C-alpha cells in the first residue's frame, strides 16, 4: 500500500503522532537507521519504500506493531554499534560538518545510551556541560563514549588507564570524576 510521501519534517511529525510515538523518541531514530535515512528530519520516497520492505510492513498499523521488534533488532550486539555511529552521523546536517555541538551530544547520549547506561550518561552529560576544553565532539570521541560505557567499570573507574589510547576528553572526564569522589 503506497503511503504518503514524507519528504518533510512536518510529514515526519505527522507520522509520529500517527504511530503514537513522540518525535524525540529514540524509536524514530531507530526507524531512521532501519530506513538508512541520510538526512535528519527527512525520509525520501526510496528510503521509505526500501525500509518498509525490510521491515516487512505495508501499513501504519503494521509499522506500529513492528516497532518493538525493531527495538530488539537494534539492541542486538552486532547492530548496536552500527546504530550508535549512525545516530552521530545523523546529526551532521551541514555538508562538511565533522563535529556536533555539546548540547546536541548531551541530548543524543541521553536518547541513545540513557536506558542502558544511565549512571554513566548522567555523569558524562554533567561533565560535558561544565568543561570548556571542547565545544564540539567529533566522531572518534563519540565512538569512544560507547566503548567507555561498555568496558570501564562504573562508578569506581578501577580499570581506566589514562596511558592507553582513550581520547583526551575521557582522560579529563575520569580525572574530574575522581576529584569529585575524593
Amino acid at each position, binding site marked *: 500500500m503506497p503511503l504518503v510521501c514524507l519528504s518533510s519534517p512536518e510529514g515526519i511529525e505527522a507520522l509520529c503522532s500517527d504511530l503514537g510515538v513522540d518525535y524525540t523518541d529514540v524509536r524514530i531514530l531507530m526507524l531512521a537507521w532501519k530506513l538508512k535515512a541520510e538526512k535528519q528530519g527527512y525520509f525520501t520516497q526510496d528510503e521509505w519504500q526500501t525500509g518498509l520492505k525490510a521491515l516487512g510492513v505495508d501499513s501504519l498499523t503494521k509499522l506500529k506493531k513492528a516497532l518493538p521488534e525493531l527495538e530488539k533488532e537494534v539492541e542486538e550486539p552486532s547492530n548496536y554499534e552500527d546504530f550508535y555511529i549512525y545516530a552521530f552521523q545523523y546529526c551532521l546536517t551541514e555538508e562538511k560538518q*565533522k563535529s556536533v555541538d555539546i548540547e546536541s551530544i548531551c541530548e543524543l547520549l541521553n536518547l541513545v545510551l540513557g536506558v542502558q547506561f544511565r549512571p554513566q550518561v548522567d555523569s558524562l552529560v554533567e561533565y560535558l556541560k561544565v568543561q570548556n576544553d571542547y565545544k564540539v565532539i567529533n566522531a*572518534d*570521541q563519540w565512538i*569512544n563514549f560507547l566503548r567507555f560505557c561498555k568496558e570501564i567499570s562504573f562508578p569506581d573507574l578501577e580499570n581506566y588507564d589514562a596511558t*592507553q*589510547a582513550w*581520547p*583526551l576528553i575521557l*582522560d579529563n572526564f575520569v580525572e574530574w570524576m575522581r576529584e569529585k569522589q575524593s
Partner: protein
Amino acid sequence: MSNQKKRNFQIEAFKHRVVVDPKYAEKTWSVLEHAIHEIYNHNASGLSFEELYRNAYNMVLHKFGEKLYSGLVTTMTAHLKEISKSIEAAQGGLFLEELNRKWNDHNKALQMIRDILMYMDRTYIPNAHKTPVHELGLNLWRDNVIHSSKIQSRLLSMLLELVHKERTGEVIDRGLMRNIIKMLMDLGSSVYQEDFEKPFLEVSAEFYMGESQKFIECCDCGDYLKKAEIRLNEEIERVTHYLDVKSEVKITNVVEKEMIASHMMRLVHMENSGLVNMLLDDKYEDLGRMYNLFRRVPNGLSTIRDVMTSHLREIGKQLVTDAEKLKDPVEFVQRLLDEKDKYDNIISQAFCNDKTFQNALNSSFEYFINLNNRSPEFISLFVDDKLRKGLKGVSEEEVEIILDKVMMLFRYLQEKDVFEKYYKQHLAKRLLSGKTVSDDAERSLIVKLKTECGYQFTSKLEGMFTDMKTSQDTMQGFYSSHLELTDGPTLVVQVLTTGSWPTQPSITCNLPAEMSALCEKFRSYYLGTHTGRRLSWQTNMGTADIKATFGKGQKHELNVSTYQMCVLMLFNNADRLSYKEIEQATGIPASDLKRCLQSMACVKGKNVLRKEPMSKDIGEEDALLVNDKFTSKFYKVKIGTVVAQKETEPEKLETRQRVEEDRKPQIEAAIVRIMKSRRVLDHNNIIAEVTKQLQSRFLANPTEIKKRIESLIERDFLERDNNDRKLYRYLA
C-alpha cells in the same frame, strides 16, 4: 789364545731350585733397620750407601719387598713417636723451634732412606700400590707428630698466638713461622687448611670484628678508613712473608667484611666526617681511600655513588630554586659550572675517573637543571654576558674551554628549543648593537651547536650573520650610487630577513623629516635591486648618534635609540612640549614612550631633558623641556633605555606560549613521519617513538602528543583500527 776359536759363554739358569737362606731376609733387614736408626741418630756418616742400596735391592729382588716395606713403616713410626715426645717436652717458645729442627732432621733422614730404598720405590711399591717412600715419610710425620694429641692443638694455638702478637705490634720470628707453615703446606693442602688456615681465618674474623667495633666508636670516618687500609696492607704483607699465597684473598676477604662491609653505611653517613662532608671539603685523599676500600666489597661503590647522587641532587635543587641566587642569571650559571668543575675534579682525583660516577654526575645535573624552567633562558644570558664583555682579552684556548663548558650544560637541558628561542633573541640584540666581543667566539659557538643539534638548529642563526654581512655590502652600494648624500645625516641600515630573526611586532613611528626622506631613498634603492620584497622599518630597534649643543654651549654627542632621537629632534622646533604633544608627533606607543622619556629625564647623568613636575615617573600631564644645564664628563654620552635584560613576567609568559605553539607542528610532523613508515602502530609505541624523535629538542608531553593524534584523526591523517582501538593506522 788369539787363534783359538771364540766361544760364546752362555750363562744358564740353575736347573734346580735355588734355596735362599730364609734367614737371609732377616739378616738383610736388620742391616737396613740398623742403618735407619743410625740415620735418625745422626750417625749416617759411617754407613756405606752402596752396601745398603744393594741390600735393599736384594730384598726386593728376592721377593721380600713386603717385609722391607712394613719394616720401614714400623721403624719410622717408632722413631717419629720418640721425636714426638721430645717435641712435647719443649717449653714455651722452644716448642716451635724444636718442631722445626726435628722436621728438618726428618726430611734429611727421609731423603737418605729414600735413596737407599730407591729400587723398592720404583718396583715393588708401584706394583703393590703402596705409598711411595717420600710421601710415606710425610704421612707418618703428619700422623705421628703433627696430629698427635699433645702436639696438634698446642701447635695451632702457638701459631695463632704469634699472629696475634704481631697484630698487636710485637715483632715475631717470621723465619720460624715461615718454616712451620711451609711444613704444613708440604704435608698437603688439607693439612694446611684444617690445621691452620681455617682456624686462622676464624680467629682473624673475631679479631677484626673487635677492632672495627673499637675504631668505629672513637674514630671519624677518615681516620677509620686509614686504619682499615693499614690493617689490610698488613695482612697482605703477612701472607707474602709467611703464609700460602692462596690465603691472601681469603684473609683480605675477612678484613674487608669485618672492617668495611659491616660498617659501610655507618661510615658513609657519619656525621661531620662522612662521605658528604668529604665531598663538600674536597678531601681527595680520604675520598680516594674510601673508593679503593669500598670497591673491594659488594655494593661498596654503588653505596658511595648513591649517596653522592642524592647529595648532588639536593644541592642542585637548592641552587636552582633559591630565589636569591636566581636574581643574577650569570652568577647562577657560574655556580652551576663551578659545581660541575668541583665534581669533575673529585671524580678524576679520587674516583679514578670511574665512568659510572661520571654517569651519576651527569644524570644528577640533568635532573636538577631542568627543575627550573628558566634554566634555558639563564644559560643563554650567561653566554650573552660572556660574548658581550666576559670574554674580552681572553685567549683563544680559554674561550674554547668556556664555550665547551657551556655546551656541556646545554646538553643537560630538556627544553633545548626554549634555549634556541632565547639565544636567537640575545644574538639578535648583540648583532644589531654591534656589541659582540669576538666574532670568532660567536661562530665557534654556532658550530658547536650545529654539531650537537644538527643543521636545522643553526641554519637560522647563520642566516642572521649573513644578513649583517649583506647589509654592509648594501650600504656601500647605496652610498656609492648616491654620492650627493655624503654630506647629510649618515644612514646605516641592517636588512633582516624575517624568517631568520626573532619575530618583532612591527611598529613604526614618525621619523623626523630629514630621516624619513633618507629612508625613502634607501627603500627605493633597495627595492630597485631586489624585486618581490617588502621592507618594514623596525623603529623600535634602531639607534642614533646626535650632536647636541646645550644652553651654556656645551657640545655633546648623544648615542640614543631611534625613539629617543625622534623625541629630541622635536626640540629643535620647540622649547617646551607636553607629553601628549610628543606622543602625537612621534606616534610612539605609550609604554615605550614613557620608558624612553624616563631614560632621558629621570636618570642621573643622562638627563638631557627636564621634566615638570620633577617626579620619578612619567605622567600623561607632564611637560618636558631641554635641560640646558646638562653636563657630563664625557663628550660622547650614551643614553640607554630603561629596559631589563631579563624578561619581565608577561614577556616570559609570551615566550613560553610561543614555544608551546611551535612545538605543536613539530609533534605532528613527528607523528606523521613515524606513521608513514610504520603504517600501523599502537598507542604506547607512538608515544615512545615521538618522544624519542623529539628528545634532542624538548621533552614531549604524552598528553600533548595525544591531543595532536586526535587532531590528526579529525583531519583524516590517521584513523583508529576498527577492531583494536589502541591501534592507529596511517591514511595515505
